[in-house]
């Protein structure tokens, strides 16, 4: 361990503790706590976006309103993720763990893709089912993460 101007090589036990401490700090930087309402709101917005797609052939004014609402909700999710996951106050450019992020994004993408594929075959209710399943996925992964990051 470093002591003033002298340096002694850490023992394996000290090295283990130092690495564990470094890993904990790195983890705490990447996995910042998010508000308790964060994942439920994201789940609800995703469900709403998916449900709007279940409206059978909206026409005219309803179509315009639907499109505006869907775009607005999509932008709100982007803003939430930016504010609470990527650019929290006090931090700049938190490193994103791309591996798990891409993996969960691909899994999440399967739900709307499945709805697109099954819409004509089973009916537009598949959008509501896909939205519900996606919301459950968000809550199932997000709520434990939120609890763990607040306890770290």
């Amino acid at each position, binding site marked *: 361990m470093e002591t003033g101007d002298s340096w002694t090589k850490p023992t394996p036990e000290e090295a283990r503790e130092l690495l564990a401490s470094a890993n904990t700090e790195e983890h705490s930087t990447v996995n910042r706590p998010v508000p308790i309402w964060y994942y439920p709101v994201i789940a609800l917005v995703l469900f709403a976006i998916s449900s709007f797609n279940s409206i059978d052939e909206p026409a005219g004014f309803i179509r315009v309103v639907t499109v505006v609402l869907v775009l607005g909700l999509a932008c709100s999710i982007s803003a939430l993720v930016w504010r609470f996951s990527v650019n929290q*106050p006090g931090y700049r450019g938190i490193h994103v763990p791309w591996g798990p992020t891409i993996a969960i994004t691909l899994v999440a993408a399967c739900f709307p893709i499945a709805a697109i594929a099954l819409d004509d075959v089973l009916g537009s209710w598949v959008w509501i089912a896909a939205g519900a399943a996606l919301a459950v996925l968000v809550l199932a992964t997000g709520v434990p993460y939120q609890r763990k990051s607040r306890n770290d």
Partner: protein
Amino acid sequence: MLSQAEGIEFSEIQNRTGLSKSALSKHLTQLIDVGHLKDEQFVRSGSSRLMLSLTSQGRAAYAGHRKALEEILLVENTAPSPMTR
């Protein structure tokens, strides 16, 4: 903690380490003096704040320290046990 972000504010570092302002300033100044850290004043919510970030030299030094610690553990794990003969 700085290795996983482009920058962290002084107040947040103080909050996470539990160090006093003066103690933290002393440590950070030493790191800035050797070129491992850089600081940047900015304004957020109407008040002046200090953002700290690792320099490329600092990131390399941190990576080197981590590698040295991992090598110590690797040597320990690969050294023959006195029981196995």
